[in-house]
C-alpha cells in the first residue's frame, strides 16, 4: 500500500544525512564535553560548532544559544525563568494568546496558580493576532509577552516583528515559540527584536529530544534545571552531543533549502486546499496566505476527526486532527475554538502537514482518497443527517 506521511507538524523523519553527522557521536566519539582529555575535547568542539551554527541560523551569537531537551523545556524555561526573575521587580503579568501550544498555555496556567496574572489575546477568525490588541493588553506590571511564531495546528504566521517591536518600545520582554516556524520562514532575532525564542530539532528532520532556547544577551532568567556548569552554567546536564550535532545539521540544512521548499510546498498546499474545498460543507481553518507553506487544516461538518484519521491510516495516509486523541481529553482543539469554531465543527478537523519529502503524487492520492472517506463517514453520521435535514 502507498504510504504518505503528512504529519510533519507532529514530527519529521530524521534526515539520513543528519544521522550521518550524528553517527560518530553515537559510536566512537562518546566523550563527555566537560572532560579534559582529547575525546572529551572533541565532543566539546562539536557542541561549540553546533552552537555557532544555530546562532548563525537565527542571527544570534553563540553565547545566546542554550541547548535543551526540546520545545517544551525551552518554553517552560523561558516563561517561568523570566517571570520568576522579574517577580521581585513587581512584574506579575504575562500576555499570550488563546491558541498557543500547551507547552506555553499550561506553563502560563501554572504561573497563574502561583499568583501571576495572564491575558490571552484574541486570535480572530483568521488565526492572526492584532497588534492593537497587544497594545491594549500591555500593563505597567507586564513582564513578558509570549506569542508563537506560527501555530502548530492551523499554521498561521504571526506578525512577530511588529509585535516584538511594540514590546521593545514598552520595555517588555518578548518570547516566541518558533517551534513550527523555524526553518520554514526566515527568522532574525536581531532584526525582529526577539528576546527569547524556542525551537526543537524533530520538527525540521533533526532528532527527537533536543531543542534550544535563544536568550538575548543581557536578558536574565532563572534556571529551570540546576546542577553542573553545562550550557554556560544555565542549563545543567551532560550534553546530548549526538542530538545537539543533529539539531545543528538539520537546522543548517533547513535554512539552506528554505526558499525552494517554500515555493514547492506552497504550490502543493494551495492545490490541496482548492481540491478539498470542493467537498460540501468543508472549510479551511486559518488565513489562507499567512500560513506555513506545508500546512493544510480543514473542517468537514458532520464527521469526527479521529474516525477520519483512522480511515486515512487504513489508506496509508498519516495525518492528524486538532483533538488530542491520546491525551485523555476528548475536548476539541483549543486552537479551533480560539478561532471561533463551534464545538461540533471543531471536532471534525483534519491537519495535513508536508515536508520536503512529499510530492505532487502525494497530493493527487490524498485528493482522491479523502472525499469517499468523508462520504462514508457522513453516511453513517446522525449529525450529518441532522445538518442535511435542517438545511433542506
Amino acid at each position, binding site marked *: 500500500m502507498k504510504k504518505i506521511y503528512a504529519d510533519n507538524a507532529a514530527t519529521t523523519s530524521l534526515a539520513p544525512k543528519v544521522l550521518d553527522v550524528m553517527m560518530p557521536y553515537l559510536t566512537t566519539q562518546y566523550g563527555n564535553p566537560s572532560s579534559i582529555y582529547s575525546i572529551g575535547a572533541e565532543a566539546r568542539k562539536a557542541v561549540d560548532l553546533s552552537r555557532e551554527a544555530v546562532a548563525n541560523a537565527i542571527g544570534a551569537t553563540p553565547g545566546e544559544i542554550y541547548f535543551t531537551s526540546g520545545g517544551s523545556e525551552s518554553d517552560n524555561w523561558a516563561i517561568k525563568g523570566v517571570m520568576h526573575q522579574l517577580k521581585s521587580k513587581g512584574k506579575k503579568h504575562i500576555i499570550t494568546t488563546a491558541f498557543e501550544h500547551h507547552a506555553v498555555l499550561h506553563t502560563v496556567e501554572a504561573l497563574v496558580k502561583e499568583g501571576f496574572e495572564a491575558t490571552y489575546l484574541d486570535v480572530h477568525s483568521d488565526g492572526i493576532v492584532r497588534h492593537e490588541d497587544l497594545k491594549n493588553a500591555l500593563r505597567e506590571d507586564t513582564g513578558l509577552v509570549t506569542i508563537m511564531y506560527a501555530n502548530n495546528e492551523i499554521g498561521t504566521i504571526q506578525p512577530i516583528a511588529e509585535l516584538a517591536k511594540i514590546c521593545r518600545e514598552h520595555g517588555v520582554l518578548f518570547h516566541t515559540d518558533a517551534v513550527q516556524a523555524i526553518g520554514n520562514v526566515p527568522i532574525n532575532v536581531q532584526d525582529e527584536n526577539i528576546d527569547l525564542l524556542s525551537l526543537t530539532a524533530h520538527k525540521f528532520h533533526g532528532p527527537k529530544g533536543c531543542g534550544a532556547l535563544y536568550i538575548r544577551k543581557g536578558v536574565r532568567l532563572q534556571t529551570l534545571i540546576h546542577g553542573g556548569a553545562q550550557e554556560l552554567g544555565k542549563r545543567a546536564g551532560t550534553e546530548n552531543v549526538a542530538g545537539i550535532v543533529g539539531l545543528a545539521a538539520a537546522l543548517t540544512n533547513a535554512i539552506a533549502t528554505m526558499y525552494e521548499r517554500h515555493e514547492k510546498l506552497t504550490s502543493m498546499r494551495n492545490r490541496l486546499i482548492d481540491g478539498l474545498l470542493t467537498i460540501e460543507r468543508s472549510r479551511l481553518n486559518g488565513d489562507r496566505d499567512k500560513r506555513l507553506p506545508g500546512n493544510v487544516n480543514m473542517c468537514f461538518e458532520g464527521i469526527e476527526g*479521529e474516525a477520519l484519521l*483512522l480511515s486515512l491510516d487504513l489508506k496509508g495516509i498519516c495525518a492528524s486532527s486538532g483533538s488530542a486523541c491520546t491525551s485523555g481529553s476528548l475536548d476539541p482543539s483549543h486552537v479551533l475554538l480560539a478561532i471561533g469554531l463551534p464545538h461540533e465543527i471543531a471536532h471534525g478537523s483534519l491537519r495535513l502537514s508536508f515536508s520536503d519529502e512529499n510530492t505532487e503524487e502525494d497530493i493527487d492520492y490524498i485528493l482522491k482518497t479523502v472525499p469517499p472517506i468523508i462520504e462514508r463517514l457522513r453516511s453513517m*453520521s*446522525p*449529525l450529518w*443527517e441532522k445538518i442535511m435535514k435542517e438545511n433542506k
Partner: protein
Amino acid sequence: MAYSEKVMDHFANPRNVGEIADADGVGEVGNSKCGDIMKMYIKVNNGVISDVKFKTFGCGAAIATSSMATELIKGKSIDDALKLTNKAVMEALDGLPPVKVHCSVLAEQAIKTAVADYYKRQGIDPEPIVGSMTDCHDFDCES
C-alpha cells in the same frame, strides 16, 4: 492508542449501519459538543430484537462499539439486550484504550434508550424496567 484488531475491523466494516424506517424504538445518546452521538434503531418481534441498525458520529471506538453492540443484541430478547453491559462490549472487542471506555458506556446507553423508547411507544413506563438515562456529560466526557 492502539486499537485491537477487532475494534479496527468493526470500525472499517461496521455491522448494521443504517436506519430502520419503521423502527419500534429509536434511541439517541451523546451530543456533538461531547464529540460522540449514537443513534440506534430497533425492531422488536415477540419480545425479541429482530433487527437493529445504528448511525454514529464519533471516534473509531464509538463506531466500533456501536457496531459490536448491535451485533450482540441482534436476535436476543429485550431482557437479554438490557443486560448487555459496556464491559461485555469491550470484552467482545478485545478491549479498549482507557480513554475510550466511555464509548462502550455510550453504546450500552444507546441500546437502553432505544428499548425505553420502544416501551414508551407501547404505553409502558420504561423507567422501572430500563432505569433512568444519563447523557454523555453525566458519565464524564473528559475521562
